[in-house]
């Protein structure tokens, strides 16, 4: 029990902090998360009453396989990104680096808090912690980043306010904000338009945070201009946690009434649109990071599609995709970010011949890219497979078609890059480099990227195990 409490508390950071704590803390959190997940899987979800007050009067943490799994994912990525950001931070003044680390830890604790809490208002508080930390981190990438972040701030605040207001409606109908309590009382509260409005508000708020099409406008700019470690972490994790929150609310809190069903079917069409739009827009980009951002829009569309189809296979696919995509995107952004300074231009042209200059990094990149396209035996293939199954089960032929078409599209834009990496002739390394026999990139940057690439492969290879051991238990009863 104590262990789980330490997990979200890692954000207590002082100004004079050394870099090392930033790495150690998420690692500790990771350990705790894994432990917590184990317990949840073995003996069922466990509840922790903060302040010693039982819900619904107090706030509780609920660790079930779903939340525990997400926590593990977040903590793992946080640890890896913390290692990765080492070289980047060395270039900054110590004070600035300390502030950066502080924000990073705050972001991590905010996200972990979201995954573990059983109280909807508490979720809002942690959502804001994560958002504010994210704004600070994203804006540190230079002037354009500041503009993008400001826009994100405005939209993000609208989203959070919607969520809060929706929560208010639900509270008005039931008198509680505890998730389990709400689940019990909402069916009895009748419904009518107040409930519908509440549901819609919460869903829209979370959807904006997830960058679901067509509310995704803030995302490409924000991801493109932020510093590499930041994008790596945020792209991988933030929308996933919001997706988790959506999943929680839709399936664990709200009753399966008319309002929710309508919301789900609207979502499914929107998601399908997003998948296509994301893929098409990604094609049009020359800057790799922007392309990856649009690809994320599409990928989150898959997740929402899975959520909205609502059957076991689709949900499994969605959860598997969340995991796989988080890892893969982190790997991709990490690889892009770690390219040597000469190729600071992150456009496709700059990748020419990269396989010679950074062979390992590019191998990981390719692996992750393949996963996003959906080629076996990477993780992406299996998650799409489940999604496809789910779509067919639900007789949703148009969606199945969308899945296939978008996979083709993503194949196009990724192979474009892969081709340049391996087959194009790149600029010869500078004389000084050759004489110094410069290593590829520093180990700190390389390690995490390689690890992530490997994980992508592992998830794919062992996906059966993953599904039966963890994901099956995380699914809601349907």
């Amino acid at each position: 029990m104590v262990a789980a409490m330490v997990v979200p508390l890692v954000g207590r950071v002082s100004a004079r902090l050394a870099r090392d704590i930033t790495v150690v803390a998420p690692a500790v959190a990771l350990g705790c998360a894994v432990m917590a997940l184990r317990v949840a899987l073995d003996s069922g979800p466990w509840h922790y009453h903060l302040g010693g007050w039982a819900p619904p009067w107090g706030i509780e943490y609920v660790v079930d396989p779903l939340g525990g799994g997400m926590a593990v994912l977040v903590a793992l990525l946080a640890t890896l990104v913390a290692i990765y950001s080492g070289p980047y931070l060395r270039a900054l003044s110590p004070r600035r680096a300390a502030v950066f680390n502080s924000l990073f830890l705050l972001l991590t604790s905010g996200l972990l808090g979201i995954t573990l809490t059983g109280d909807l208002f508490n979720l809002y508080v942690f959502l804001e912690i994560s958002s504010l930390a994210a704004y600070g981190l994203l804006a540190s990438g230079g002037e354009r980043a500041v503009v993008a972040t400001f826009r994100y701030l405005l939209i993000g605040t609208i989203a959070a306010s919607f969520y809060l207001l929706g929560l208010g409606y639900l509270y008005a109908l039931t008198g509680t904000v505890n998730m389990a309590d709400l689940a019990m009382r909402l069916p009895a509260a009748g419904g009518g338009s107040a409930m519908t409005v509440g549901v819609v508000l919460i869903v829209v708020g979370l959807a904006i945070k997830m960058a679901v099409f067509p509310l995704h406008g803030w995302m490409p700019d924000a991801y493109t201009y932020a510093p590499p470690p930041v994008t790596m972490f945020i792209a991988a994790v933030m929308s996933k946690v919001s997706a988790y929150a959506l999943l929680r609310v839709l399936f664990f809190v709200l009753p399966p009434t008319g309002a929710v069903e309508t919301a789900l079917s609207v979502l499914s069409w929107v998601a399908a649109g997003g998948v296509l739009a994301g893929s098409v827009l990604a094609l049009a980009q020359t800057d790799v990071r922007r392309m990856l951002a649009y690809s994320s829009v599409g990928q989150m569309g898959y997740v929402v599609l899975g959520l909205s189809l609502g059957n076991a296979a689709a949900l499994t696919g969605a959860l598997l995709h969340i995991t796989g995509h988080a890892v893969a995107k982190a790997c991709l952004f990490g690889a892009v970010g770690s390219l040597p300074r000469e190729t600071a231009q992150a456009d496709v042209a700059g990748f020419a011949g990269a396989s010679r200059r950074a062979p390992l990094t590019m191998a990981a990149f390719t692996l992750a890219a393949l996963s996003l396209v959906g080629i076996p035996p990477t993780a992406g293939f299996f998650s799409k497979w489940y999604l496809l199954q789910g779509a067919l089960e639900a007789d949703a032929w148009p969606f199945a078609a969308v899945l296939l078409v978008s996979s083709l599209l993503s194949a196009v834009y990724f192979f474009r890059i892969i081709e340049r990496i391996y087959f194009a002739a790149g600029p010869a390394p500078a004389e000084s480099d050759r004489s110094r026999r410069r290593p590829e990139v520093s180990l700190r940057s390389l390690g995490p990227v390689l690890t992530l690439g490997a994980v992508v492969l592992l998830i794919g290879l062992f996906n059966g195990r993953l599904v039966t051991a963890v994901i099956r238990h995380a699914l809601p009863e349907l």
Partner: protein
Amino acid sequence: MSLIAGGQLQYVLAAALLLVGLYGMLVKTNFVRKLMAMNVMQVGVIVFFVSLAVRTGGTPPIEIEHQAPGTAVAYANPLPHALMLTAIVVSVSTTGVALALLIRIYRRFDTLDEAELLDRLRE
């Protein structure tokens, strides 16, 4: 209107504030105005919650000492109040960060207007 009779006019006004805020954020080009609109919107949400906590003929949720036993006092609901305290703090935090961002934007681009900024970015 039935809404007024039903004692729900406050919700309407809260909604009005919310929408005024949203409108301001979408329509105005000046960033500072957008921020103010954002705050208005957030206050709208707070008004909503506070309205939920009101008790007709009630009193603020602070226990009155020395009551004769058996008297029931109608207190306002303390839970939304506590939640909204948090919301106010969140609101000022966000505003602070937003203003810091604005200062950077102004320093670099010499404008606080979105339309102008987009023009300058395109150059």
